[in-house]
């Protein structure tokens, strides 16, 4: 397996707040890696720094053997790395279809685009039913599906998913995570950020536990599930 992404000593500072204190990790091609941790642990900041939404104050991000640190987000997106932001980043005034078309803005492989579009509608039949609806009118779960579908439409092979379970009912969460698994089986590499630790660990191959902007622990997801420290980080030690 080859490392598709390597992050070295990534540091992010917002004004006076140090959100990331220098974290390092890697992702192999075809993996699902999850970063779990409490609110404010620096999970979202990690994704933002990778996808160019914020400029890291130091550190390096390498993607497919290219240094993408400090590239603007639209150029990073064109490398095949797509970030589904926290809160789903809906463009509420655009219809479902327009959201999807938008994502293909930089693609020239029209035949493949068409194929991908069909694939997305196949994966998410609910989106197909609501093609012409403004995405603002979708339910939370549908919006999450659209956000993922949109990321796929950019032609990305690597997805950064920021809290896909946020604000969703358990049944829907289950559905979303099934999709994530399917996508992985279809060959996508996925970096998943979650508060919903158990679900995330059950889905991922490997995991990193973040606390206060630093990696607390890492390892195979299966090993971490039973780790008391993980439980402690969430529920308090007993």
């Amino acid at each position: 397996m080859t490392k598709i992404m390597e992050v070295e000593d990534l540091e992010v500072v917002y004004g006076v707040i140090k959100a990331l204190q220098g974290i390092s990790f890697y992702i192999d091609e075809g993996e699902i890696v999850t970063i779990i941790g409490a609110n404010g642990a620096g999970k979202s900041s990690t994704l933002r720094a990778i996808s160019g939404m914020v400029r890291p104050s130091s550190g390096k991000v390498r993607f497919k053997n290219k240094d993408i640190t400090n590239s603007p987000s639209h150029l990073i997106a064109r490398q095949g790395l797509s970030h589904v932001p926290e809160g789903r980043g809906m463009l509420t005034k655009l219809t479902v279809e327009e959201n999807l078309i938008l994502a293909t803005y930089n693609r020239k492989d029209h035949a493949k685009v068409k194929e991908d579009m069909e694939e997305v509608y196949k994966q998410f039949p609910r989106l197909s039913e609501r093609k012409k609806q403004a995405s603002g009118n979708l339910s939370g779960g549908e919006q999450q599906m659209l956000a993922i579908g949109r990321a796929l439409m950019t032609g990305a092979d690597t997805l950064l998913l920021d809290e896909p379970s946020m604000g969703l009912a358990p049944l829907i969460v289950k559905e979303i995570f099934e999709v994530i698994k399917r996508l992985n089986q279809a060959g996508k590499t996925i970096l998943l950020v979650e508060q919903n630790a158990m679900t995330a660990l059950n889905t991922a191959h490997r995991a990193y536990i973040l606390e206060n902007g630093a990696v607390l622990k890492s390892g195979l997801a299966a090993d971490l599930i039973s780790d008391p420290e993980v439980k402690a980080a969430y529920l308090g030690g007993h």
Partner: protein
Amino acid sequence: MELLEIKELNHMFGGLKAISSLNINVKPKMIYGVIGANGAGKTTLFNLITGIYQPTAGQIFLDGTSLVGKQSYEISRLGVARTFQNLRLFNDLTVVENIQVGQIHRRRLGKHKTKDLSVKIESLIKLFGLDVRAEEKAGNLPYGMQRKLEIARALATEPKLLLLDEPAAGMNPKEVQGLVGLIKEVKRQYSDITIVLIEHQMKLVEGLCDYATVMNFGQVIANGTVEEIQNNPVVIKAYLGEAEVG
């Protein structure tokens, strides 16, 4: 007699129910925790108590006085103070000035002499360890200090009820520990005060709170002492997620 009594509170955003049929009772002098994941409706609850939003239905009483329909500043004058999850300091004002703003309406009531008030500011600043940077602009303080300043500013209004919205967000373990000590010290010095704090980290709640409520999707899913809650299966499920997927 409850200090804060919330009855059948409902709040809608557009067509979405952010809070539904919420009931919470807080006894005086308690430290009370409201726990829940992101999007569970905790901040909305605070916004409803402090009059930033008006509830769609339901009642909120402070010491028997209804808060529904009152403006934020009126509620503050009745003795409710709060902090914000995403810090809302007066960034261009100094630390002292930030706290002074908190004192203003007290001063207007004429109950205090200016001298007493500046003594109070001094003790607050000392308590929160802000004395070395008292004349600095709030926006230039390090993050942890900004969090503390917000609490100090809220305390300056001399509230009966202090609402803390994720006071530990973004702090490192050492800072969190300091914060816990600080809140305990506040409770010791202001013995009459009642504190309600929003938190999603059990850790903090565990060390501080007498009693807690867990929220999920705008509803209360559990009530009780911290220990009861930690062992409540519904809470564990909501917190750690489904044990099995697929």
